[in-house]
């Protein structure tokens, strides 16, 4: 048995550490809510919801530089998430209009059409992997169209995302190679957009918005464009796929919830929030302390890295009744799945709609399903085998 001190010292939220992460979070919340890990160069970590919200909303004390990601996924600052106010808002404003409730209303039908086709194809075909067939396919198709990533390139995306996000703690060299490949890809794509040698140009895509954008009268530099594209690529594809996959993973085991949602699809948005709370695609993000401060009596020095464990805050018993339980009809659900403060996930409202519509269409078409392989994990975007009557 590892001691509490050992668990604190080796605190991690990637790879196999996620196998038992909810137990780890509980121990940390109860014993060292402001803990110190030696991983990734050393960092403080916060596991209480209140502390995490406070840091997220305190831009005077905390910076995201050099990067929000722990460990990093790029060797350059990613736009907009690795920038602080006021530049942050200049960058965010470029794309904010694409993700308002008004803008999202127009995306309902295209998302639903894609989800419906994918669900039918999944139900009819002999395949059983709901990740490839549905959870990853939906954001790949919808978000790539919205972003203006040409369809012929989509087959390359999954491997790049896997290498950059999931291999980086195991095989950094491989992650770096994928990072370079994605940057080269966008370098080429930006050139095609500029030369209008591509069908997607001028169609109101994210790429168009970025290329047309001006900050204080100046267009974005090449490096700024590349950085923004890189972040959109990672943020738009992986997290939504995780959320859809995790929802199906849970429903495959909770047949009562599955039945309830089929009978009463109006409950799906509430269920989606609950999955986002309990099985959050982004388990943690980092900050750097700008000036000496104190959290729960623990001194934090300027320059120290602080990791916000969203996944732990989301199961904080001070905030939620029966926090470890996935209750699809939980009403008050002020969770941290998309972060908070100025860095609130830019695509949160799109991600939510893709998840809700995806679940609605999947449950309409695919009959009662169960887990085909209980060894498959709750996290990530790996295979999810579902059994159901064809």
């Amino acid at each position, binding site marked *: 048995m590892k001691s509490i001190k050992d668990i604190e010292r080796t605190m991690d939220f990637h790879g196999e550490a996620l196998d038992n992460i909810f137990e780890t979070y509980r121990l940390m919340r109860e014993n060292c809510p402001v803990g110190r890990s030696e991983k990734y160069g050393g960092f403080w970590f916060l596991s209480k919801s209140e502390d995490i919200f406070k840091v997220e909303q305190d831009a005077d004390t905390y910076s995201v530089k050099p990067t929000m990601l722990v460990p990093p996924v790029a060797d350059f600052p990613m736009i907009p998430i690795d920038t602080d106010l006021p530049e942050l808002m200049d960058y965010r404003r470029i794309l904010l209009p694409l993700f308002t409730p008004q803008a999202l209303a127009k995306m309902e039908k295209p998302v639903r059409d894609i989800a419906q086709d994918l669900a039918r194809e999944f139900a009819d075909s002999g395949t059983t992997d709901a990740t490839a067939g549905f959870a990853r396919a939906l954001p790949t198709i919808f978000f790539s169209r919205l972003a203006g990533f040409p369809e012929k390139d989509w087959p390359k995306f999954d491997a790049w995302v896997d290498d950059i996000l999931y291999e980086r703690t195991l095989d950094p060299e491989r992650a770096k190679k994928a990072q370079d490949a994605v940057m080269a890809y966008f370098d080429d794509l930006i050139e095609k957009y500029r030369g209008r040698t591509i069908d997607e140009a001028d169609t109101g895509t994210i790429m168009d918005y970025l290329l047309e954008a001006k900050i204080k009268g100046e267009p974005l530099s090449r490096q700024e464009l590349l950085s923004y594209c890189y972040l959109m690529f990672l943020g738009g594809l992986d997290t939504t796929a995780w959320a859809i996959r995790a929802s199906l993973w849970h429903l495959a085991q909770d047949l009562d919830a599955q039945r309830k949602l089929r009978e009463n699809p109006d409950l799906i948005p509430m269920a989606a929030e609950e999955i986002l709370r309990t099985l959050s695609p982004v388990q943690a993000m980092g900050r750097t302390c700008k000036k000496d401060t104190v959290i729960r009596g623990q001194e934090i020095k300027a320059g120290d890295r602080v990791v916000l464990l969203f996944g732990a805050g989301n199961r904080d018993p001070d905030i939620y009744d029966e926090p470890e339980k996935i209750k699809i009809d939980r009403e008050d659900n002020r*969770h941290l799945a998309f972060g908070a403060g100025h860095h609130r996930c830019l695509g949160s*409202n799109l991600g939510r709609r893709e998840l809700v519509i995806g679940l609605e269409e999947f449950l309409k078409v695919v009959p009662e399903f169960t887990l085909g392989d209980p060894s498959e994990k709750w996290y990530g975007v790996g295979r999810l085998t579902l059994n159901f009557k064809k």
Partner: protein
Amino acid sequence: MKVLLDSHRCQGHARCAAFAPETFVFDDDGFSRVREGMEDVKPENAPGVRKACANCPELAISIIED
């Protein structure tokens, strides 16, 4: 019952749109405010406004009971 929205706290999560779309309205960047004339909450809108308040990640919404 009255509802107030602190626009300095709002970060555009749009949870209020999910629970009380009749009460909140959004600007072109997706930031919320209380729709004109909706500050006094009608009884039929009260449950939705309460949910919007409870679910706002930024605690930007406050309710003043009569």
